């Protein structure tokens, strides 16, 4: 569905050039839930911006269903990390969710139905006429998710969407996004720096190296859906995968030395 081919991104020119992304290639199949994880500051957001057409890559290509992505495509929605900055504070929850639908050719009843369904799917029906700043952080991110799903994308990109909410809310939102995916039949690409989160949510994980970013490993997550915060995380397979990804990232952060995890305990930074 979405394929990234030898993508690279360099900021600046000449002496001052910074290579943010070295060479990244991977593919996303239909109805997949792929998580992209990497050490802090490894250019995850840059990668996501290139994939969504918000940023032009220096080299390489992004293709959505065979066509090149140069501008954000209509089949794609994006949920940003900074919900408070991507929601429009002068519009109510309803206004925010309906905003991207205004230029789609829908009649009013259809539009209202889409909006109310999406708001219901994220559990905010009782707050539809509130303003974003009257809601908690977790609820604001739910609004952003509702806006994305009402847009009816085939593919949803999420940029560390739960990084700024507390741990409990985070768990709730993870389950919410899994339910939303079931209900709306979407392909999801989820960028995170949280290893547990990546294993818990996805069916495939793309592990990145530090900047200039390359793909370190792509691994399948064969945990059964539907997942559960307690039961899934109790599975030995979960622990195993988590440890594996952890090692890859720790090793990467310590500078790619093969025995880095035993040699450099200070690199074992908690996510």
């Amino acid at each position, binding site marked *: 569905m979405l394929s990234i081919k030898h993508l690279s991104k360099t900021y600046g020119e000449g002496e001052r050039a910074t290579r943010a992304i070295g060479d990244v290639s991977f593919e996303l199949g239909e109805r997949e839930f792929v998580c992209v994880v990497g050490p802090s500051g490894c250019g995850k957001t840059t990668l996501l*911006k290139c994939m*969504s057409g*918000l940023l032009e890559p220096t080299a390489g290509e992004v293709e959505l269903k065979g066509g090149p992505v140069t*501008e*954000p495509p*209509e089949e*794609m*929605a*994006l949920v*940003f990390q*900074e919900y*408070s*900055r*991507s929601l*429009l*504070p*002068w*519009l109510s929850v309803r206004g925010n969710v309906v*905003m*991207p639908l*205004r*230029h789609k050719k829908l009649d009013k009843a259809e539009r209202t139905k889409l909006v109310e369904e999406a708001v219901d799917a994220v559990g905010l029906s009782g707050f539809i006429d509130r*303003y*974003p*700043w*009257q809601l908690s952080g977790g609820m604001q991110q739910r609004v952003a998710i509702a*806006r994305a799903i009402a*847009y009816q994308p085939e593919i949803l990109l999420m940029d560390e969407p739960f990084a700024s909410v507390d741990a409990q809310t985070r768990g709730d939102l993870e389950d919410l996004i899994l339910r939303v995916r079931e209900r709306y039949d979407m392909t999801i690409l989820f960028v995170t720096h949280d290893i547990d989160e990546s294993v818990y949510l996805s069916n495939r994980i793309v592990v990145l190296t530090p900047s200039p970013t390359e793909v370190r490993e792509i691994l399948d997550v064969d945990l059964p859906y539907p997942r559960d915060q307690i039961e899934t995380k109790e599975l030995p397979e979960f622990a195993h995968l988590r440890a594996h990804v952890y090692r890859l990232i720790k090793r990467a952060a310590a500078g790619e030395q093969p025995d880095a995890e035993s040699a450099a305990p200070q690199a074992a930074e908690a996510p």
Partner: protein
Amino acid sequence: MRPRTRRVLELALEIAVPVVLLAIIWVWSASSETFYYPPLSEVLQRFADNWLFERFASDVWPSLRRMGLGYAIAVVLGVAVGTALGGSRLLRLGTAPVVEFLRSIPPPALIPFGIVVIGVGDSMKVFIIAFVCVWPVLLNTIDGIEGIDPTLKDTARVYGLSGTDRLLRMTLPAASPQIFAGMRLSLSLALILMVISEMVASTNGIGFFVLQSQRSFAIAEMWSGILLLGFLGYAFNLVFVLLERRVLAWHRGAKASALG
């Protein structure tokens, strides 16, 4: 109950101070023999004679019309040009010296030019008011548009928001706190320029009346005109603040919630 009691007391204070001041002036000026400071009672008498509503059509209305027109032109022009300039760095760079130069011209210096080119009629006064009021609106609009959060712009692109929809639902609301700040500044300028423009080559208006009264030694009349201008300025500001509170309610709410 307590916060309410406090509010009542605060309001009482706000009303009491001007009332006491007026009372002092009333008493002090009652026995005034000075030509330049006639008794307040006389000034108020003239105020009632002139402005309620004898001279409303002949002087107040023309003044308000000039001010309103000039101000409206300034706001529309300032927001329109400011939006264009705020959206383009190149345009901004190219026009910055011209804008800085034009806005540095002391406005009364333009009156002779206005008289020669446009004439002594209303158009000249409207032009002067608009010319002066446009800068605060323009500069604040540029500032507001320039400062729109990049995440918000990305959001608009991702969701295919473009054209008028983007302008009316994202760009202008996002810049509206700054636009309003500029409009508020311009509002007081509009009143000042209205008076100044009416003091030169004019046949009616409140500014004309004040000057004319002074020239014919009708000092109480003059004071009544000054009093009216003070009231007008106060009223305009009050209306503006109420409007701003309504339109920017989201802004105050968002700011308050961001602070915790």
